[in-house]
C-alpha cells in the first residue's frame, strides 16, 4: 500500500512538473468522458516490419529476473515504480528498449493474475477476458522519444510477443479524445466495441458508467 501511494504521488508530481496541472486534472477529474473498448485477434496482427525501428531497439518482456539482471534506465521515476507495482500484482509487461534505456512500456492482465482477479477496467468497460486472452492497458512512451511510429511499434511488438506466448486475443481501450492513442489503435486495426461513458472525481473509482449500444467507428 505504501509503495502504491508513493507511486501515485510521484506520478502526480511528474505529471505537473513535466506536463501541466491541466494534464493531471484531465486524467483524474472528468465527466462523461467517452472510452472506446477495443479487441484484436492476435492471428491478424500487422507484421512487425510495418513499423520498423533501429536495429539496436527491441521489445522485451519485463520480468523480475530482467530487472535484477539489467539496470534499466526509466525516463521517469513513476514508470519504474509502476513496473514494480504491476509485477507484484502479476501483470505482464513489455518494454521497448534501446540498450538499457526504456523508451516505452505497456502492460496486460491475464489469468496469471493473483487470486484470479481481473483488471478493474474490465468491469466498467464491459470486457470479459477469457483464458488465453489478455487485457492491455497503461501504455507509456517517453515524451522525448515520441514520433517515428514508436507507439505503434511498441504496441504491435508487445502483441506479437503475447501471440508467441500462446495468447489468441487482446482487449484494451482508448479515450475518444486522446488522438495519439486513437491513431495507434486504428493503425493496428483493432476492432472497436460499444463505447462507454465514464465520470471520475480525483482519486475516486469511476463514479458513473453508461454504455452506448452501437460502436460509432
Amino acid at each position, binding site marked *: 500500500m505504501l509503495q502504491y501511494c508513493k507511486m501515485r504521488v510521484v506520478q502526480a508530481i511528474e505529471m505537473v512538473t513535466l506536463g501541466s496541472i491541466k494534464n493531471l486534472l484531465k486524467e483524474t477529474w472528468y465527466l462523461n468522458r467517452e472510452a472506446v473498448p477495443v479487441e484484436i485477434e492476435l492471428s491478424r496482427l500487422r507484421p512487425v516490419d510495418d513499423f520498423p525501428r533501429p536495429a539496436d531497439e527491441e521489445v522485451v518482456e519485463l520480468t523480475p529476473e530482467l530487472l535484477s539482471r539489467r539496470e534499466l534506465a526509466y525516463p521517469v521515476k513513476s514508470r519504474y515504480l509502476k513496473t514494480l507495482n504491476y509485477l507484484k500484482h502479476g501483470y505482464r509487461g513489455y518494454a521497448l528498449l534501446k540498450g538499457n534505456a526504456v523508451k516505452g512500456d505497456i502492460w496486460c492482465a491475464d489469468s496469471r493474475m493473483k487470486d484470479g482477479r481481473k483488471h478493474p477496467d474490465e468491469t466498467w468497460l464491459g470486457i470479459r477476458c477469457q483464458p488465453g486472452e489478455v487485457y492491455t492497458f497503461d501504455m507509456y512512451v517517453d515524451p522525448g522519444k*515520441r*514520433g*517515428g*511510429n*514508436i*507507439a*505503434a511499434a511498441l504496441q504491435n511488438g508487445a502483441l506479437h510477443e503475447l501471440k508467441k506466448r500462446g495468447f489468441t486475443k487482446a482487449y484494451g481501450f482508448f479515450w*475518444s*479524445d486522446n*488522438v*495519439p*492513442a*486513437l*491513431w*495507434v489503435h*486504428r*493503425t493496428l486495426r483493432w476492432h472497436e466495441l460499444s463505447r462507454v461513458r465514464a465520470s471520475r472525481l480525483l482519486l475516486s473509482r469511476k463514479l458513473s458508467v453508461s454504455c452506448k449500444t452501437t460502436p*460509432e*467507428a
Partner: protein
Amino acid sequence: MTDFTETIRNFIETEMVSQSQGITLSPSDSLIEKGIIDSLGVQILIAYLEKQFGFHIMDTEIVPENFETICSVVDFINLKLNAKS
C-alpha cells in the same frame, strides 16, 4: 471543389517533414508509410486543419483512409467544407 494540394503540401513539408529528413512529397505518396503521419503527426495535422479551415474533426473521422496521402487529406477537407456550407 477547391484544390488545397499546395497548401497541405507546404504545411507538411515545412512543419512536419523535418521529422522525415526533408523528403519531397508527391500528392499520392503515403504519408503513413513515410512515417510523417504517426500518432504525433496526426495530432499536429488535425490541429492545423481545424484552425486553418474552421471545422471540427470528429474522432470517428480520424482514420488512416482520410490521412493516407496529401490527395486524401485534400478530399477530406473538401468533404468537410461541403458539409459545413
